[in-house]
């Protein structure tokens, strides 16, 4: 059965390693923070200038001066630090953040990503996404395998304006975990009960399927 958003977040959370600094994008990526495996300590960086983000505040304890990059009210954990936006992107560009998780509209088989602009529609801007994808060594995309029209989002080439080139290393969808290596998607795991055939059918880009494809363990 295909995963729901929480399933995707849980699977991505398994990628976390002890001591990592992690930047989570808006949407599914944000949920990853709720499923950190036990024994793993990570710290969350928010590109507006917060390190050591904690959970949302209790009702009534919101502070307008304490938000994350999604403009949501947050709290901090012991050991947190605040800094300006240039320092924040110094962390990102300088590869001090070990993992970036973000959403996408399209990913191509060579790791290009499109997630900021649909021609003809209102453009909201790229925010920090272009800096994040151009800089991070380790980028995981969390997204649905297909768009609302049922078309694959794992493509030979992105059709939308790019956010970054050859940068995505891994994609986690409701159907599968895929690595991007040498211009192809490599099927690593499938969602529980999802067939390899379904993943092949829904992946437009070049897909390498090993003989045995394990099911995700969630």
């Amino acid at each position, binding site marked *: 059965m295909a995963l729901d958003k929480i399933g995707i977040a849980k699977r991505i959370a398994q990628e976390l390693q002890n001591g990592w600094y992690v930047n989570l994008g808006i949407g599914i990526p944000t949920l990853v923070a709720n499923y950190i495996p036990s024994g793993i300590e990570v710290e969350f960086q*928010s*590109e*507006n*200038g*917060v390190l050591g983000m904690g*959970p*949302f*505040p*209790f*009702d*009534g*304890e*919101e*502070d*307008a*001066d*304490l*938000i*994350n*990059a*999604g*403009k*949501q*009210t*947050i709290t*901090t954990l012991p050991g947190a630090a*605040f*800094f*300006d*936006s*240039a320092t*924040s*992107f110094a962390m*990102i*560009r300088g590869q001090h953040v070990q993992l970036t998780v973000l959403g996408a509209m399209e990913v191509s088989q060579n790791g*290009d990503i499109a997630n900021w602009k649909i021609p003809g529609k*209102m*453009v*909201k*801007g*790229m*925010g*920090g*996404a*272009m*800096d994040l994808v*151009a*800089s991070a060594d380790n980028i995981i995309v969390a997204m649905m395998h297909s768009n609302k029209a049922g078309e694959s989002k794992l493509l030979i080439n992105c059709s939308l*304006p*790019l*956010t*970054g*080139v*050859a940068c995505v290393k891994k994609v986690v969808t409701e159907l599968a975990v895929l690595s991007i290596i040498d211009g192809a998607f490599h099927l690593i795991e499938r969602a529980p009960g999802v067939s390899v055939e379904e993943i092949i059918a829904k992946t437009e880009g070049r897909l390498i399927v090993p003989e045995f494809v394990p099911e995700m363990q969630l």
Partner: protein
Amino acid sequence: MYKVVKNAEEALRDIQDDMTIMLGGFGLCGIPENSIGELVRKGTKRLTCISNNAGVDGFGLGLLLETKQIKKMISSYVGENDEFERQMLSGELEVDLIPQGSLAERCRAGGAGIPAFYTPAGFGTEIAEGKEVRIYNGKPHILEEALTADFAIVKAWKGDTAGNLVYKAAARNFNPLMAMAGKITIAEVEELLPAGSLDPNEIHTPGIFVQRIFQGKKFEKRIEQRTVRKRD
């Protein structure tokens, strides 16, 4: 160095039509509310505004959009704002979108006398069109130039009469960088203290970057996304 002015009116007295203004803040967090109010009152026109975001309908830079005082926005993320969208789609408003990290670094560079630098952000995208590309460490980078402004308007938590500023939490964001990049930098603060009240170790923006400072009359501090959890 006594830099105190009475209020926003005095601080912004010589901001004129067609000028370029930087405004600190991220979303509605850490924005110079009093100065934005004064710009609305003054009716200064055809402004080019450099600000990470463009406010929301009815607050922040949204107020200046409603009165059509903005000719051009230079931002990284906009459009939590219907009026913005209308003006942009109708062509009334020019918009220059810049990756957030490049925007921050370009402001800092402007203030630091670094006219240009290389960054990987935006390579291979439309942002890179017409920009020089150079390979460093095996990776393509594009050349980005510094940004400066006729006026930078920032908002701080505490400030002293010598212009030293301290920001609170995530309200710091672009404020220290823009403070560096204004030909004239105006700071509005929640609390204005005598010089010597702030610990010199704890100052975020040294007074040298600030030409005028005043205590804001009122800070509404609206929250854009109120997210909370229930008590157990």
